[in-house]
């Protein structure tokens, strides 16, 4: 998918994460803030890159404002933001590309 417009998903509540995706042209450019960045910074990076690859997103500026979210919450917010950037809210190919 191509990121045509800036879109967001998530909140700044505890255990959530606010994800912003915006158009880019230099691969996945990632900015992360998290209270647990020392322990989970690498895991967050990996989840973002894996999810973008799974959705076929090659270029995007991704901002992750983590509030201690579980990995499954991060995936949910990333996917929601990417689909929103494409104006898609229905007929989602649930599970596509998952192992």
């Amino acid at each position: 998918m191509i990121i045509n417009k800036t879109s967001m998903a998530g909140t700044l509540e505890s255990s959530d994460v606010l994800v912003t995706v915006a158009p880019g042209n230099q691969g996945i450019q990632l900015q992360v803030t998290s209270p647990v960045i020392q322990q989970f910074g690498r895991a967050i990076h990996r989840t973002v890159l894996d999810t973008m690859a799974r959705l076929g997103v090659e270029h995007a500026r991704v901002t992750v404002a983590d509030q201690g979210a579980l990995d499954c919450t991060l995936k949910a917010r990333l996917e929601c933001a990417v689909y929103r950037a494409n104006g898609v809210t229905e007929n989602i190919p649930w599970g596509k590309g998952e192992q």
Partner: protein
Amino acid sequence: MNIAERKNRLRRTMMFLSAQRPNLIKDPYLFAPDSLIFDLEDAVAENQKDAARFSLYHAIKNLDYHGIERLVRINALDTPHWAEDVRVSVASGIDGIRIAKCETAQDVRVIEQAVISAEQEFSREPGSVLLMAALESPLAVLNAYEISKASPRMFGIALSGGDFRRCLRTTGAGGGVDMFTARGLMVLSARAAGIQCFDTVYTKLDDLEGFEKETRLIKDMGFDGKSIVNARQIKIVHDIFAPSKAEIAEAERVVMAIRENAEKGIGIFQLDGKMLDIAFMEGAERTIALAKASGLYKGGL
């Protein structure tokens, strides 16, 4: 559990959680309700319906709910959301769907068709996704029996008090007398159809005394359980539904006596001055099952 066992499983408490709130859905098994209801409907704002579905999908796929039943309340048929709600629910692997604002048997059949399509699309076992219906209007309650019989997937009907009282134009100030007819009709309908019946939520969270009173009432009326909006309410319901020591002891004696007499070819007999036959078996077995679930029975049955 096979599908028949899943339909009949114990459901004293069914706790609502907004599917959109990560802090609620990450570890609700700690409170040990019998069922969890991930809400895509009223607890989710109109512009967050999509976000709630992604949140639901990844939670169900990735988190361990320790054997607690996982249901999803989907948006009603008069919204643009229900079809995608069904798809994501089935795709994620949930156990069943709660149909909001169900008014007729036809409503159940529409959802059933969508579930069948989704089971095929996402390679789930045909017939594995169960259904229940929330009855929220006078028309729905009057159709309770037809709704209960509308699909072999149906395991229960639940009263939804907020909307129902709005339709009746009552406030609940009378201690529940306004709901008496609806509750009675629903228990009769569910039993006639051979499915379960659940009472509405109690939204005055600090009024635990009122909650306890209402729970005793609906238990005595024959309901199987209650929808729950706060974890504090769970223990109260489970305690009220737990059989007493005397009830457990009697149930155990009844089960054993019926079995022993059946082996001797005796169908009807007396125990402690009371006539007993096979008709008492089901109730006694249910008491033992409730006692086991409540951690009160360690016997051999």
